[in-house]
Each structure stands twice: as structure tokens, then as C-alpha cells.
């Protein structure tokens, strides 16, 4: 889904825009209280994580990011998110000290990542099984009521530059038509 407050979209539930906390779910059926800003699952340590970063910084009211549940074997998006916040990325855009398999931030500007690191505090509750304990941390954050971080940061998605140099490469599906490299079909000889 897409939401005007969270322009990068994803699989999440929007609750209270003014709330200071967002919750990331890892393989858990836990449902946070409705007074959090937004909550939803993450499955991948690259694309999924990028969406969380971009969506979180678009709402400056979010000052805490709570991560709970059991991390996903191999991919470890939860622990990778913790590492991203703690260490940032190297010059190859790899999350420093990330345990996940493919921990790259490739579609976000470095500035967006830095903003994320400054805007939120991470609450690492990975592996905590007692929902009451997670609820208590959520309540505690809401009670603290920290100020907004300022203006929303709308991250631009970096798009790959395409290299469509081949223009005369044509393949036949039928003798009457040609399909060019871009997938456009036209009559042969047109």
C-alpha cells in the first residue's frame, strides 16, 4: 500500500500520524497498540529495509523505531537494520558490520540514511517473546513524547541509468512482425 505520509509504500498499517514510535515486525503475530505511528513486517535486508528508512524519515514525528520478533535466518533484516543505524554504510553502499546476506542500500541517497540515523533511536527487542514487555516499551516511548525532528524528508528513489545502446537488434516471433530490444512490436518493414 501507499500512503501520502509514507510515500515509498509497503506492507504496513498506519495508526496515529502524531505518534513518536514505529514498530517493525519480524516473523511475529504481535500487534502493537493503535497509538503507534505505523507498524509492519520486514522480510529483506535490502529493499525492505530501504522502504522502512524512507517511510520513517517522511514522518518527522517518529523518533523511536522498535524492532521485535524473531529475525529471519540468512537474511537477518532486523539485525541489519540495527547495524545500519549503528554504523551506516561503506562506500560500496554495504551496511557496515551487517550480518544479513545481501545488506545493501542502493536506492537511497546517503543523506537519507544519515537523516534516519539521526532522527530515530532504535529499540532492539529482537527475540523478546513477551508481548507485555514490548507493549511496556511502546507505552514508555509514547509517555516521553519527544519533539518532532522538524520537516519531513521525502527521499527520492535512485533509479538505475539504463544503457539501451542496441537499437537494431530484432527478433522474430512471426515473419510479419519484429520485436526490438525494448520489446516493441511492429510490422516487418515498417
Amino acid at each position, binding site marked *: 500500500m501507499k500512503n501520502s505520509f509514507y510515500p515509498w509504500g509497503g*506492507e504496513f498499517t498506519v495508526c496515529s500520524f502524531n505518534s513518536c514510535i514505529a514498530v517493525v515486525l519480524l516473523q511475529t503475530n504481535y500487534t502493537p497498540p493503535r497509538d503507534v505511528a505505523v507498524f509492519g513486517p520486514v522480510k529483506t535486508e535490502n529493499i525492505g529495509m530501504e522502504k522502512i528508512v524512507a517511510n520513517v524519515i517522511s514522518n518527522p514525528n517518529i523518533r523511536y523505531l522498535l524492532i521485535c520478533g524473531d529475525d529471519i*535466518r540468512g537474511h537477518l533484516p532486523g539485525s541489519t537494520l540495527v547495524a545500519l543505524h549503528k554504523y551506516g554504510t561503506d562506500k560500496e553502499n554495504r551496511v557496515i558490520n551487517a550480518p544479513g*546476506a*545481501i545488506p*545493501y542500500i*542502493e536506492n537511497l541517497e546517503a543523506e537519507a540514511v544519515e537523516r534516519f540515523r539521526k532522527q530515530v533511536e532504535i529499540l532492539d527487542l529482537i527475540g523478546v517473546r513477551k508481548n507485555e514487555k514490548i507493549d511496556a516499551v511502546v507505552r514508555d516511548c509514547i509517555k516521553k513524547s519527544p519533539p518532532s525532528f522538524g520537516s519531513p524528508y521525502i527521499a527520492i528513489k535512485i533509479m*538505475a541509468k539504463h*544503457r539501451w545502446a542496441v537499437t537494431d537488434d530484432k527478433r522474430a516471433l512471426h515473419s510479419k512482425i519484429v520485436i526490438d530490444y525494448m*520489446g516493441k512490436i511492429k510490422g516487418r518493414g515498417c
Partner: protein
Amino acid sequence: MFSFTKKQKILDISGIHIGGQPGEYPTVLFGGMFFKGEPKLDEGKEQLKKMLMLSRLTGNPAIPDFFIRKESYIEKILDFIESTLPKKHPFSIDITVPSIKIKTLEHLHRRSLLSRTIYNSIHIGVTEEERKALKKYTPAAAIVVAFNPKDKSPDGKIEVLENSAHLLDKGLLAIADEVGIKNVLVDTAALAPGENSGASVAAIPVIKEEYGLPAGCAIHNVVEKSAWLKNFDSAAKVVDASSNINIPLFGGDYAIFGPAENAEFVFPIIAWEDILISEYTENYFGTKTRENHPRRKFFK
């Protein structure tokens, strides 16, 4: 329906052929086993039996794809393979944790199973230790996943095969070659809706024309990530199974179709699609359809 100008490589993995021109060989179907929790061996035995029966009926080769989540499951699953799978039948191992990948390779070597093993998978997260282990214990084949976090288009997928999008010292195909993999299957990396999900299908003919290698993907992952489908409960399974027809229709050679329990839907759908494609490609391009093809099974 296509015919490729580039000569197509046909792999023979322990008796199962993968690759070639569209309509030539039947689509190979990988069914996943032991995805969740402790491996349920009795259930797995039944699923495997059913999948192999469907394969015999349709002509579409079945390859069980064993998901190994924990190190403690390795012996158990390899025992299952040795005792349940017909001798020489190939299988793939799907493992996400590098240390478990390495351990499993050692066990496969010790049990002389590497000649039947399809390694699932080599991707840009491949570690140095994993590369060393693959060199030492080389499986018969490997699935190379063309996932490029920088560029999800077919061009990006080619880039990662060529130069790992500069995230590793060399491209994924060169890494596969370096460790001694003789048989490479390219997985075009199906991503969630909103992440250029269609590119995994569009990349199939592009990669086959570029390299002549067998190509396919796990397109069912796109269905799994289509949260909106939850509102259409009764259709979800149909969509999941039929999503696989995109692969042969775009010239692909294999589908990793998700849980083996879906085999009863997937095999007839793909056999039907394979017949449709082969009728046209034989009539128009003169592609010879092989003996074990569903078209030969059902239309003598």
C-alpha cells in the same frame, strides 16, 4: 512464443534435461520441501511421491528443493534424500545461511551426493568461505540468482551476472566458473510488486538470448508478496499456480513453484502450457519437441 538465435545450452543434470529452445524440452519444476519448522519426514515422503507421480503422468521433470534452515537438520534431510528419492534423481538444496551451506556441502561430499546436487544458490551475498567450499566440494549444478539491488531491470540482472554490479571482485557467472560449476541455471530474481516484479519474466528471453543458458525464476514469490490477494481467498492458490505459466511462455526452462504441496495444481497447468507452446514453436520455427514432452505424452 520465441525462438532464440543464440545456440541454447542443454544441461543434463543426473538424467534431467534443462534448457534448449522453447518447446523443445518440458519445463522443469522445482517443488519446495521442509520450509517451516522441524522437517516432517512422513509428510515429505507423501509430497515427494505425489510430485514424482505427477511428473511421470505429465512428462514435466520434478526436482525437490530441500530447504535446510538449521545445521541440526542437515543429516536428517540428507538421510531422507538417500532413503526416499530414486537413486540418481537430482535435487536442489535451498539454504540461506552461509555456514549451513558450507556444512551441507561437506556432508553431500561425504555421502557422494554432489553429482545429483543443484546448489540453490549463488548470489551477490556469496562469501569467500562459501566460494572456497564450492571449489572443494563442487555440486553438479548451481542456480545463479541475478538479483541486483541497484537495478531491478533486465539490464541490472545482466550487470550482476557480468560484474556483480561491482559489489564483488567479479561477476556471478565468473564466480560460478571459478569454483568449477559446469552447469549454471540463471534465476532472474522475482521481486515483490512495486519492485519491477515483471522484470523477472522479461529478463528470461533477454538472458537466454545473451548467454544461451537455462533461465527461470520463483515467480510464485510475487504472488506470495501480493498482500491484496488476501481479499480473494479462493483465488489465491489458482493465481499462485498459474503465475508459473509466465516462465515457459517467455521462453524459460524451469520454475521454482513454492511448496511441493502445490504440485497437483502446477504440473497440469505447466504441462498444458508446454503443449500450447510446443505446437506453435514446432510448426512455425521447426523446433523439435523431445520424447518426454507433455505433448508427446498426451498426443502421440
